[in-house]
């Protein structure tokens, strides 16, 4: 019995056609949002605005992809927004102290990785509920960011940093390229590697995995570590976009990421998920934020809308689960 569930975890044999069959739910949401905003605002479908949605969604995508894997293991990482913020502050701090961009990026990645590994160890070794563990590390990261900056922005004027967000490579904005690379990397990790197989299995039945003699803990730690590392990478884009590190810059962004994952059809309870859905979910959240912006809806109300989107997506998930 238990071996069966390892041999064929749901979705590992995912082919493109299998993925396509699951499109409807999130595609409907995305299509509906695009339709509504296209009717409500003539700017929405303009080429510059669509590019804008793409650019703004990349940070979200970089967080949402590892978040998908974490949620597939029946976990979550609430500290992601705060870790991204801290990494951004670290990156800006190194640059402001005459460090080079590679050094600053390395420092941001190490910061993110340290929190990811820490989260993973607390969840995997102590078997504590991920929600509360990452809530605690969120407080730690937030506190460190505040302490490091005294609540102020660290402004950086560094040409090579600004070139990251503003620059383009063969006519394609670099930011989009980074997003594409991270998507390809995540896809490879989840669907082509041993790591990915265990991500599916961890959500389905971690006990069976342990009984089968697999060091499930290592893989669980690795999943959270990947999340932390990506938060560090996202800090590069965020800091480049704002030309500064601010201690509250990305607070709460993990919620947008979780929303994108849930809307994208990854389930909190059944241990199955898919990255393409998350990509569509990211675009849905990005379109929602952008469209509401165009309609000059306050950002607080945007947050409420995303919250409602999550609850509706969970309800749909719940009804699917009962069948």
């Amino acid at each position, binding site marked *: 019995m238990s071996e069966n569930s390892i041999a064929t975890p749901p979705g590992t044999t995912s082919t493109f056609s299998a993925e396509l069959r699951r499109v409807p739910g999130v595609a409907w949401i995305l299509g509906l949002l695009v339709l509504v905003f296209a009717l409500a605002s003539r700017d929405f479908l303009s080429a510059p605005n669509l590019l804008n949605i793409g650019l703004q969604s990349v940070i979200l995508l970089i967080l949402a992809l590892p978040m998908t894997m974490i949620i597939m293991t029946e976990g979550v990482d609430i500290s992601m927004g705060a870790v991204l913020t801290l990494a951004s502050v670290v990156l800006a701090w190194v640059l402001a102290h005459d460090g080079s961009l590679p050094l600053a990026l390395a420092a941001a990645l190490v910061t993110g990785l340290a929190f990811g590994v820490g989260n993973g160890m607390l969840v995997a070794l102590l*078997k504590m509920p991920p929600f509360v563990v990452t809530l605690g590390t969120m407080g730690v990261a937030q*506190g460190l960011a505040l302490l490091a900056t005294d609540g102020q922005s660290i402004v950086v004027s560094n040409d090579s940093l600004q070139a990251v967000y503003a620059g383009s490579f063969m006519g394609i904005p670099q930011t989009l390229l980074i997003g594409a690379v991270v998507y390809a990397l995540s896809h490879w990790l989840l669907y082509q590697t041993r790591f990915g197989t265990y991500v599916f299995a961890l959500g389905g039945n971690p006990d069976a995995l342990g009984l089968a003699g697999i060091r499930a803990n290592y893989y669980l730690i690795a999943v959270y570590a990947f999340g932390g590392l990506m938060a560090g990478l996202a800090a590069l884009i965020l800091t480049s976009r704002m030309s500064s590190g601010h201690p509250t810059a990305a607070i709460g962004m993990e919620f947008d990421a979780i929303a994108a994952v849930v809307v994208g059809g990854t389930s*909190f309870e059944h241990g199955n998920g898919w990255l393409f859905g998350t990509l569509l979910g990211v675009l849905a959240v990005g379109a929602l934020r952008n469209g509401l912006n165009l309609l000059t809806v306050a950002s607080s109300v945007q947050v409420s809308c*995303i919250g*409602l989107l999550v609850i509706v997506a*969970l309800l749909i998930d719940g009804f699917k689960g009962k069948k």
Partner: protein
Amino acid sequence: MNDAIASGRLMARLVDLKTIGYRLAAALAICLVLAAASDVFLTTNNLLNVLRQASLLFLLASGLTLVILTAGLDLSVGANIGMSACIAASVIKLTGSAMLGAATGVGVGLAIGLLNGVLVALMRMPPFIATYGMLWVVHGVTYWFMAGTTIYGFPAAFRALGSGYFLGLPIPVYLMFVFLALGSFFAQRTTYGQEIYAIGANREAARLSGVPIAKRLILVYAVSGAMAGLASLVFLARMNSAEGDIGEAFTLPAIAAALIGGTSLFGGVGTVSGTLVGALILTLVLNGMNLLTIDASWQPLVTGVIVLLAVFFDALTRKGGDGRQ
């Protein structure tokens, strides 16, 4: 009485005796350190201040404790305080009636709690994510409602709830004792309370024993919401002003208070009186940092570390512990 309920009750008593003693000793030790480190600590004014802050935290965390006893969690309590306080404040301003405002505050809190309960119990959503989603919905609506404004200046009768004294003690302290008694009686001495322990200890066994799970879950989330509403009134009365972000800093300390007090995130273990001691310990630590003029920026960091430590010890005691699961 069935097994699940009986073992839940026995466990509650044992944990109560064993853990409260250690924790009170820890609180005393912190007091000694602070008394040695700061001249101000032992002044009547400061001690009353600690009690008042602890009572506010306890009011919030006591309701949350019931939720955690069922192996759930309510992450929306901070946002709940924000909305309850802001709506209560505007009702007081509009009608001039403190009673009506207070009733509205508790009502709003209760409504949010009921919604959480429905999502968790009837829609079967995982408690963490349901209340986390609710957090952001409530947060956004509150900000939209306040539109960046501040409501301030309330009638003296209302403000007494937060800053008044009776027989030398702050009024919130009386509220704390009332709800300590009510909460402990409810959890330890009523069938409802025992069923709540049973749900947390072993949900399947509780269900087979005939405990109406959905109803009890809705009850605990509703109580948690209503207590957040009540806490918001005390806080509002103390601050004498309301802004959209008024409750945000409360979620983590409330969870920390329950965990320090010995309530297990895995459910079925913990007491309301433990949470009181937890609230006291956390308040003492934060007060001590204040007295030693440590920057307020340290507070989220310290609270975060305290949550992690509490979670850590929760895991340790369970591993060596009671042999369940």
